[in-house]
C-alpha cells in the first residue's frame, strides 16, 4: 500500500502545481459563504449554529467534486500517460486508491479552510461545537462518496467534459433520491417502508442526521460503502481499459 501513498502524494502535489486546487478552493470557500449568508440567512436567523452552511454542501459538491475529479483518468487516457502509469511497478488498485486519497485530501483541506465561518458563529454566540464537528466529519465522508463516483465516471471516457456531465448526473441521482420530489412520486402507491428504502439511498438522508450532531454507524457505513464500491468499479473499468 506504500505505492498508493506515493501516488497520492504525487497527485496531491500535482493539484497544486497547476491552478486547479487554488481555483477549486477559492470557489468552494466563496460559494459556501455566499450560500450560507444570502440563501441560508445565517446572520438574520440569529441562531449560533452552522446548519445554513452544511445544508448546501451536497449541492456544492454536486458540481465542484466532478470538476476536480474529471481529469483523474480521462486526462491520463487522452494524453497516453496511462500506459506509462501501468508500466510502473504499481497495481491498478494502488493507482485508484492513491488518486482517491489525493483528491480526498484536497477536499479535506478545502473543508478545513472554511474555519472562518466556525469562528464567526463562535464570535456571535455559543454554538454546540460537538454538532459542528460531527457535521464536518459527515461532510467529508459525503465528499468522499461524490469523489469516488466522479473518478469512476472519469475512468469511463477520455473526454473530460463527458466525464464531468456523467458524474453530475449520477451524483444528482444519489442526492435526489431522498428529496421530496422523488419521494412524492412514490408516496402515491408505495408504503412507508419502500419510501424509507428509496430515501436511504440518498446522500441527503444520511448527511442530515450527521449535521445534527449524531454520528450513527449506519450513516458512516453507508458512505464507506458508496465510496468503496465505486472505487472498486473504477478499478474494474481501468483494468478493462488497460486490457483493451
Amino acid at each position: 500500500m506504500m505505492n498508493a501513498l506515493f501516488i497520492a502524494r504525487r497527485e496531491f502535489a500535482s493539484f497544486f502545481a497547476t491552478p486547479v486546487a487554488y481555483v477549486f478552493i477559492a470557489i468552494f470557500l466563496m460559494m459556501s459563504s455566499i450560500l450560507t449568508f444570502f440563501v441560508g440567512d445565517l446572520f438574520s436567523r440569529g441562531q449560533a449554529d452552522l446548519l445554513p452552511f452544511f445544508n448546501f454542501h451536497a449541492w456544492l459538491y454536486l458540481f465542484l467534486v466532478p470538476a476536480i475529479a474529471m481529469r483523474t483518468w480521462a486526462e491520463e487516457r487522452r494524453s497516453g500517460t496511462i500506459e506509462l502509469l501501468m508500466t510502473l511497478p504499481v497495481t491498478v488498485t494502488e493507482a485508484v486508491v492513491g488518486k482517491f486519497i489525493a483528491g480526498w485530501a484536497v477536499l479535506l483541506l478545502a473543508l478545513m479552510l472554511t474555519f472562518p465561518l466556525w469562528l464567526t458563529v463562535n464570535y456571535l454566540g455559543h454554538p454546540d461545537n460537538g454538532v459542528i464537528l460531527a457535521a464536518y466529519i459527515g461532510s467529508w465522508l459525503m465528499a468522499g462518496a461524490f469523489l469516488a463516483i466522479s473518478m469512476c465516471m472519469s475512468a469511463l471516457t477520455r473526454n473530460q467534459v463527458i466525464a464531468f456531465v456523467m458524474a453530475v448526473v449520477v451524483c444528482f441521482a444519489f442526492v435526489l433520491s431522498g428529496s421530496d420530489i422523488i419521494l412524492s412520486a412514490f408516496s402515491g402507491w408505495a408504503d412507508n417502508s419502500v419510501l424509507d428504502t428509496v430515501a436511504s439511498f440518498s446522500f441527503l438522508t444520511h448527511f442530515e442526521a450527521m449535521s445534527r450532531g449524531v454520528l450513527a454507524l449506519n450513516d458512516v457505513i453507508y458512505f464507506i460503502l458508496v465510496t468503496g464500491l465505486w472505487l472498486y468499479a473504477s478499478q474494474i473499468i481501468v483494468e478493462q481499459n488497460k486490457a483493451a
Partner: protein
Amino acid sequence: MKRFTAASTLILIALLFVGLVIVNNHLFDSARLDLTEGQLYTLSPGTESVIENIDEPVKLYFFFSDTTSKGMTGMRNYAERVKALLREYEKASFGKIKLEVIDPKPFSEAEDDATRFGLTAAKPGDGKEQVYFGLAATNMLDDQLVIPFFDVNKEQFLEYDLSKLLYQLSHATKPKLAMVTDMAVDGGQSPVTGQYQSSMVFFEQLEQIFDIDVIESDMSSLPKDTDVIMLAHAQSLSESLKYDIDQFAMQGGRVIVFADPHFESDMTALMGNRGANSSGTGLLYSWGIDVSPKQVLLDGKLGLDVRSNAGNVVKHPGIIGLGSEQMNREDVITANLESINLSSAGAVSLLPSSTLDMQTLLHSSDDAFLVDIRSYLPTQDPAALQLLLGKNGKQYTIAGYFTGSTVSAFGEAPPMKDGRHFMATTEDLNVMVVADADMLTDRFWVQQSQFFGQTVNSPFANNGDFVSNAVEKMAGSKALISIRSRGKTTRPFTRVETLKRAAQKRLREHEQQLRDQLAATEEELAKLQSQRGQNGALVLTDAQRDTVDSYTEKRVSIRKQLREVQYELDAEIDTLGNWLKFLNIAVAPLVLVVVLFLISLALKLRPGKAYTKRK
C-alpha cells in the same frame, strides 16, 4: 469475453450495493455517537425502561405545520429536535411505537384531525396561517393523550414530557393518592361558623388527575394499591397508620409530606389552644430528616406586604413569597414556576447521623433566620418581628427531596399488624418534604370570585402547580423520575443581543424625549383645530393658521427623527452583519488561498518530488 465479464461484474457490484445498503439500514441501526453537548438525541435509561414496559402498541401522530412555519427558525429547529427524538423512541421500541409525521396544511383533512385531537393552533399574526406543533398518542384501547403544543421554554423537559405521555397511556387508570390530613381538604361544615365550605382548590385540582382517598390521622390503615401517600399537616398519626406509612416508604413507595411548625390557617385548633399548631414529624425524624418543629423561618428579603394593626403596609418576614431564584430550575416540579407563597414555614435538613441524600427544591434567601416559635407566636406586629431578625442570616432549605438508605421507625411490627413482610431498612427511600402546610390553603395563592353563579379561581401564585407537579412526578414510575432535564437547542447570537440592548438603552431616552415633544405638539394642534366659531365652522386667524402650520411641520420633523432613532437601532447590527459577510465571502477566501500558495511555494510542492525522493 473480458468486456462481458467486466460488465457483468459491474452489474453484480450494483446489486451488491443495493443489498448492502438495505442490510446496513437494518443491521447497524443502533450504534451511534451523539456528539451534541447535552446528549440531546440519546434516550436516558429511564425512558428506555418506560418504552420497555409498554404493553399495547402505541401510535404517535406528530403534527407540525412545515408549510406554514416558514421563517420561524427557532420553532423549526425545535420541531426538528422533537421529530428526531420521537424517531429515537420509535427505534428503541422495536415496533411497539409507530410514528406518523403530519403537516396539517390549511383546510386539509390533516388539519381537521389536529383539531379533533384537541391540539392548539398558534397564530403568528400578520395574516399568516396558523401553526400546529403538537403530539397525539393513541393505543389499541382507544385511549388518547395529547401534548397540545410543544413549548420551546419547556425544552429541557421534552424527554420527560414524552415519556410521561407514554407512561400514562400504558397506565390508563388514575394513580391512587392516599391523603392523610387533619385539614378539611374536601370541604364540609365548618365547626366554627357552621357554614358549608367548598373543598380546597389544590384538592380539586388533584382530584382531576388522581383517585384520592382522604384519611384522617387517627384512622388505622391505608387503602390497598396506594401509589403515593401525601401527608398534609397530619398531626398525630395512630400507631397502626404510622406503621403502614413507614412500611410503604421502606418498600420504595413515594411519600410527600407537608409538615408545618405552625399551621395558622386552622381556626379550630387556634381557638382551643393559643400555642403552636404543628404537624407530626416523628416519622421523618426517625428516617433521618429534621423539619425544625419548634422553629419558624423568618426571611429578611422575601417578606410579603401585609396590613399592620395600625393600618399601614409593612413587610411580614414570616409570610414569604419565593421567586424563581429560590427554586430548583433543574427539577421538573419547580423548573417553570414563578412564585410560591408560604407562611410561618420551617426548614428541612438532614440529621447529622442521616445516610440519606437531600436535593433542594425550595429555599429561602440568604438572609433568613430560624426563630423559636415561642417568641414568634406572641408577636402580632410585623414591625416587631423585624426585630427578631438577627445580623447574619443564611439560606435554609424549605422543601427537599430525600433519597437513599435509611432504617424503619419501628424495630418490629406492632402487635395488631401482620409482621411477616416487615422491612427494617431500605436502600431506596423516596420522600419529599415541604416545611409548610399553610401554602396549601386557598388564601395564599388563589382568589375566588363569582362569575354568573360560577366560582372562578384566579391563582396569583404557583402553590397549586407546585403540589400537582410534585404528586404527578412522584406518581410516575421510578424510571420517569430518573429522567433528568436536558440541554437546549436554541442558541441565540449573544453578541447581537448585547449590541441590541446597549443601543436600546442609549436610544430609549432620546426616543422618549421625542415622543414627549410629539405628544405636546399634537395636543397643541388638536386644541387649535378645535376652536370653532359660533356657526360651528372652523375659524382661524392668519396668525393661528401659521401656528397650525408650524406645528404640523414640527410634527413631521419629530416623526422623522423618531424613525431615524428606530433605524439607528438596527444600523449597528446591520453593520456587524455586513462586515461578517464581507470578511467571510471576500477577504477570508482570498487571504487563505494566497497563504496556501505561499506555503506550497515554501514546501516546493512538485509532482515529481515524490518519485525523486523515493530513492
